[in-house]
């Protein structure tokens, strides 16, 4: 009895401490969400953030260094670089979103099938996944682009298709882990049909790690889309895509460093933010 009496107040204290304790704010995580929120705001309503146009230049305004009027300078036909970055957000973000959606749905579907099917199906799918992984990502993307043709959407699909294999591998491992759990066996035992149990119990419980990986892939996709845009396979020139901005600014890099440095910083900030958020998601799941 005495031990019980002794332990009671401490548990009460503990629970009170837990009640008072707020979720600990991690400054870098908050900053990361802010960066992503700002990028999404840029993409949805670019005109709110800049008075300048993203595509039409002003005569006599060419290649001006950063100033109070043009925070990040102007390019070779007098367009505001900051406006170009803001108007370019929609291309990079929607491209990355398409890529992650393609990779996530394709990979999760493959992983779910492989992880829950008989040995033959599993082996066949995993050998295909091995094959996809054996070709370097950029070359696989280029092979798909050569078939689909150039353009923002095609580049996004190519980047997404490249990530299907790694999504499938991760998702399969998770599905196999979840399938062994007691509650799945219980669901089967209480008369659940195979597909039903798969859909209601196995899939939702295997998604946590995969979602963290999706956040990581969002950053990877932004980088890959910028690279393909830089190589000239993405959006055609007047469109302000971040990779393309750097490719165009390259011609003037002897005199105008701001044309290449700032769009690059935009890419880096978004990628860093996505990576940080992915880390937090992984810690939670």
């Amino acid at each position: 009895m005495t031990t019980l009496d002794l332990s009671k107040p401490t548990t009460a204290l503990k629970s009170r401490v837990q009640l008072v304790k707020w979720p600990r704010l991690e400054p870098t995580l908050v900053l990361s969400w802010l960066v992503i929120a700002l990028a999404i705001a840029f993409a949805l309503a670019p005109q709110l953030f800049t008075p300048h146009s993203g595509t039409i230049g002003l005569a006599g305004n060419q290649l001006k260094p950063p100033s109070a009027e043009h925070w990040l300078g102007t390019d070779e036909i007098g367009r505001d670089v900051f406006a170009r970055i803001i108007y370019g957000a929609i291309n990079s973000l929607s491209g990355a979103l398409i890529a992650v959606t393609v990779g996530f749905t394709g990979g999760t579907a493959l992983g779910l099938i492989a992880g829950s099917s008989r040995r033959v199906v599993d082996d066949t799918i995993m050998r295909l996944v091995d094959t996809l992984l054996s070709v370097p990502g950029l070359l696989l993307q280029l092979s798909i682009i050569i078939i689909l043709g150039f353009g923002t959407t095609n580049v996004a699909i190519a980047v997404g298709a490249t990530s299907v294999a790694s999504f499938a591998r991760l998702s399969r491992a998770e599905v196999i882990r979840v399938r062994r759990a007691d509650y799945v066996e219980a669901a089967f035992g209480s008369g659940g049909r195979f597909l039903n149990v798969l859909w209601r119990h196995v899939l939702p419980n295997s998604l946590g790690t995969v979602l963290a990986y999706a956040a990581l892939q969002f950053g990877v996709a932004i980088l890959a889309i910028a690279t393909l845009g830089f190589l000239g396979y993405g959006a055609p020139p007047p469109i302000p895509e971040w990779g393309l901005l750097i490719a165009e600014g390259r011609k003037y890099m002897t005199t105008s460093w701001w044309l290449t440095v700032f769009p690059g910083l935009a890419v880096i900030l978004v990628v860093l933010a996505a990576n940080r958020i992915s880390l937090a998601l992984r810690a939670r799941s």
Partner: protein
Amino acid sequence: MSNYLLSRIGQAAIVLLLAFAASFLLLQALPGDAILIKYQNPEMGLTPEQIAEIRVLYGADAPIWVQFGNTVWNFVQGSFGYSVQAGVPVRDLIAVNLPATLRLSSLGLVAAIALALLVAFAATLAPLRWLRSLIASAPSLLAALPVFWIGIVLIQIFSFRLRLVPVINPNEFQQLVLPVATLAIPIAAPLAQVFIRSLDEIEAQPFIAVVRAKGASRAWILFRHMLRNAILPVLTIAGVLFGDLLAGAVVTETVFGLNGLGRVTEQAVSNQDTAVLQAIVVLAALGFVFVNLLVDLAAPLIDPRLNRKIGAAA
């Protein structure tokens, strides 16, 4: 052990064959090929009959399975077909451009390993705790940098600001130093990340505590006790790095205007020269499979405990 070796080689062969079949199906069997792109140009003034004749010459009129058989046979013999755009055999194109890319990427790999070791050692040995964690977080920053952007910024800093590396008439060292650095930084980042994590895990093990209790210095513990234990995870990401190295070479050669396989790849995509791209894709898959096979075989040499596991499994 020989059973294990055989099954590993068999797996590698299956993956290679699948990669080849997939790339063939995707790239060669599709309508709208490079022959049409080049010869349908009105400026050439060719009649449809002449184009059909050219198609026969390239073997593009045969049924798919005949083409597939021919291509497999040709690849086995070391012939990769003709580059339609350049009009030369793909093999010659690759033979001319491979050495430059090999030199760039091997120098890049060496530089990346050196950089990664430097960062990992600094992150383990630096005197202050906050300094160590600062250094340990550097690789995740480096991993977020686009390769082409690194190249452009390095040119701006070292060629145009500091004027250390001339752009016009550089000697061989000056020509290569910036591309190698560009290639090395994004490769070094994941290497250092994995190495630092691996070192951390080893450091938490009891035998390190014993060594420390005996009074060993940090450097002695790192080099004498942790290094060999921590190197294996670094080796196993070599396959991933191989892909990054190749992708990095494509981008780096484009940024710096160097000749090599990367430039060939980039131009093949722009001109839809599928024969060239297919050869490069298949060679890349071959390289990847080979590198991974080597890593799997080398792993037990570094960590003899793995040998026992393989022996038990076989």
